[in-house]
């Protein structure tokens, strides 16, 4: 299973073996990574699973869709590298993925 590293704002790292086919958000919830609220459960409706993805992974994780783009625009401190983790599906090529968590969700 691909390894995903979640890094909290304070530097704490959580390395998770993520199941193929679920989302990066679900993998975090499943492995009790704090800092991803996911209030809507993955419906791309709330922007509380916001993460920053290292630009090196941009090609492998795919592009943001319009809906995600707009939600992120109003998230807390959005950046070029912002993604909603519920919209990234875990696949083999994502082994080693590193995502950073924002200070707040919402």
């Amino acid at each position, binding site marked *: 299973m691909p390894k995903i590293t979640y890094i909290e704002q304070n530097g704490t790292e959580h390395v998770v073996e993520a199941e193929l086919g*679920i989302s990066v958000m*679900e993998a975090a*919830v*499943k*492995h*009790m990574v704090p800092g991803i*609220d996911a*209030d*809507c*459960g993955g*419906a*791309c*409706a*709330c*922007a509380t699973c916001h993460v920053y993805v290292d630009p090196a992974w941009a090609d492998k994780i795919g592009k943001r869709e319009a*809906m995600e783009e*707009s*939600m992120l*625009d*109003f*998230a807390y401190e959005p950046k070029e590298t912002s993604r909603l983790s519920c919209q990234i599906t875990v696949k083999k090529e994502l082994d080693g993925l590193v995502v950073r968590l924002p200070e707040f969700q919402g």
Partner: protein
Amino acid sequence: MGERAVIIGAGQAGAQAAASLRQAGFAGAIVILGEEPVAPYQRPPLSKAYLQGELEPDRLLLRPAAFYEKQKIDLRLGVRVEAIDRAAQIVETAGETFPYDRLLIATGAPPRRLDCPGADLPGVHYLRSIADSDRLRPVLAGGGRLVIVGAGYIGLEVAASARKAGIDVTIIEMAGRVLARVAGKEISAFFEKIHRAAGVDLRLGAALSSFAGRGRVEAAVLKSGAKIPCSAVLVGIGAAPATALAEAAGLTVGNGVWTDEHARTSDPAIFAAGDCSSHPSPIYGRRMRLESAPNAIEQAKVAGTNMAGGAAAYDAVPWFWSDQYDVKLQTVGVSDGADRTVIRGDPGRRNFSVWSLKAGKLLSVDAVNDPAAFALARRLIAAGALPDPKKLADPATALKSLLP
């Protein structure tokens, strides 16, 4: 610390409150008592992705089993609470008693049931639990017509799921428009259009008289005399808060268990959160009971924090969402009492928002495939903003320029 927290209800609110108790440093015993045999899970997908067979059951779970172990949360499932003894501070089930120092009532809001002739025939469904959705799934895989009673969120979402599965659908709605209790007429008109375009037979202003069938439902009969043959029925006519335990215990109840802004009921040792509770809204200046997952989560955070000795207050702007076909509706705020509505965008292109105002103040926004309008409105309502209606209606105005 020998303190004991008991939570009645293993839904979104119950699970969140337990997590928030621990986050707030509560070191005592936590027990969650749930009636369903399943660990806390998300309900919203039950009418959408899960019903359509796109999600495995374990993907509905809010938290992994290890969470409850690690956090020392005693999750008791398939347990029905019989009574709350406030004098003795004890919760009673059929076989056991659970003493508490802090109690949370998070019993939810089960569906209202029909009592017309034939309502108890097999094949008449309701939708609240994973078991309900599991029973409904074969209907979507079978043939024939599904009759849906009620054009609220549940009815319309199931209609969309059923049409996606290729099943014929008739919706019977007593009111003159869909979503009559939760949305304005512009949104109602829009959803009527998209459901009809998807082939739904939508009967508005239609009153149900009975169900007919031998041994199982075979037709819905309207008061007009019309008979609609069907292979199954889904009833989605709203939900009623589960307040019986609270009432019997003498707590203040009235369309929900009453709480203050700290999620505390009329008994200072007892809290309530989620669909079963009614709270004062500082934004709207009145009492509200909301049926929504985000509300359950946010209220439960407040309840859990305060059960651990904190002083959090609940002042979140309510929000809701619904997915039907290729349309995402996101609603923020509550439009009751609005004296003006402004439409931004083009309903014909399935991309618009309806802004409801009262005396200039923004009350709510319904955003159709327009998450930016939703996200912005959430901030404006929280800030008590009075946006210029002309600017709102003009698509050339950048939404962000409306922020104070």
